[in-house]
Each structure stands twice: as C-alpha cells, then as structure tokens.
C-alpha cells in the first residue's frame, strides 16, 4: 500500500530537481522549466494530502485547480517577457540580462 510518505518524498525530490535547475541553469527557458517542475511538485503535495486525510478534504483539489490555472497564466506572461528580452538584447542568457535599463 502506498503511504502518504512516499508521495511526499517524490514531491521533495521534484522540488530538489526544480531548485537545482533554477539555481544552476543559464538559459531563461530552462529556468522556466525548473519553475514549472517546482509548481508541479507542490500540486502533487496538495493532491496527496487531499486523498490521505480523514475525512478527505476537497479543498486540496480546489487549491490544485487554482494552482494549475495560475501556473498557466504565469507561463504565458513569463514567455512573453522572455520574447521581449530576446528582442531587445539578442540573448536569453540570464547572466547577461543583468541591466535594468533598456
């Protein structure tokens, strides 16, 4: 029987992978991948708790529902920002995109 602990450990592993990608990678789009992985880890966490609580709370699924919608919005705006940054600087290397002006 799969217990709650296993799901939480999987979620922690995905969080670790996401944080690694967020801190090490230079390509802005890979950083976006890492952010999406972190958000998915959190969603998994919420869904696991929803199922294993007694009595089961549906609020966890509502939170995941909102989180999926919010992540879609954030990806759209983030990708638009990456496009604009590329147009202005011809690079998406985040170590070079370090000037706030222009």
């Amino acid at each position, binding site marked *: 029987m799969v217990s709650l602990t296993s799901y939480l450990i999987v979620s922690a592993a995905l969080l670790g992978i996401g944080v690694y990608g967020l801190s090490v990678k230079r390509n802005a789009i890979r950083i976006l991948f890492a952010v999406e992985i972190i958000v998915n880890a959190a969603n998994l966490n919420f869904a696991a708790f929803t199922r294993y609580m007694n009595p089961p709370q549906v609020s966890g699924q509502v939170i995941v529902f*909102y989180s999926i919608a919010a992540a879609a919005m954030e990806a*759209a705006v983030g990708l638009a920002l990456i496009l604009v940054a590329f147009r202005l600087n011809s690079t998406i290397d985040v170590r070079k995109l370090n000037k706030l002006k222009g």
Partner: protein
Amino acid sequence: MVSLAIPSDIAFVILTVVTITAAIMALHAKELIYGAVSLAVSFIGIAGFFALLDAPYLAMLQIAIYVGAIVVLILFTIMLVRRDQAPEIDEQTNSESPVGLWLAGLLALAISGVVALAGASLPTGEPPANLQVSDLGPVLTSQYPVPLIVLALLLSASLLGALVLAKVER
C-alpha cells in the same frame, strides 16, 4: 467481467521513475526542444499521480492545460528565440563549483528526512476516501467564490498583458 487489476504499487513505482527521469532530462537535454518534450512527459507522469490519488478531473485538467497549452507556448517561444548558431552554448555548469547541486540535494534530503521522521503522525487515509468529481463544483462556487472571480480577472489580465508585451512595434 474479468477485470485487469494492475496493482497500484507497480503503477506508483513506474510513474515515479518516469516523472523524475523526465524532469532531470528536461533540464539536461542538449536541445531545448527535446527538453520541452521531456517536460511534457514529466507532466503526464504527474497527471498519472493525480489519477492514482482519486483526482481524475485534476489529472485530465493537468494534461489539457499543462501539456496541451503550456508546452505549446514553450515550444513556440523556443522556435522564436532560436539563434542561428548550431550548438546551444548556454550551459557551462562545470566552470563553477557544484553549489547548486549541493543546495538542491540538501533541500530534498532535509524535507524527506522530516517527512520520514514524522511518518507515524501523518494521516494514513485508512478509510478510503470517496471523492467524487461532483464534489468539486459545490465547494468551488459556495465556499471559494472570491478566488474563482479573482482567477477569472487574473486570467483576462494576463492574457492582455502577454498580448501587449509580445506585440511587435511597427
């Protein structure tokens, strides 16, 4: 009716392996597009987890929104941001000490340790949860109507924002 009952433990193990491998490959693939495809596979793995956790509606939503919309957006952006240089010279992580790897590893281990130590006091879910899809609707509209409306406004705002940002100045 003969039922093909796959034990959920085997499914859990397979999904874990697929999701974590795909997440790692998404960050390490040489070409960004292969990375996006691995990310899509990892999202489908998470959708499988949702299906195992008695949340089929969330699983379908995850596939429809994440893989069906976000991955398409990412693929678009990758194709629009291509420079004409053949190799992707972005990743040079060997030049610095692997601080990021240690940081992430310690974080994951710390959380896993806390979870494993608290193992006995976590809820067990022994009476199996009987969550139906139709439970979600009343809770969404009667208990959480304000976030629903805020979400709708946020969606419109982000749509307009993305349009304004990505508009080409003529």
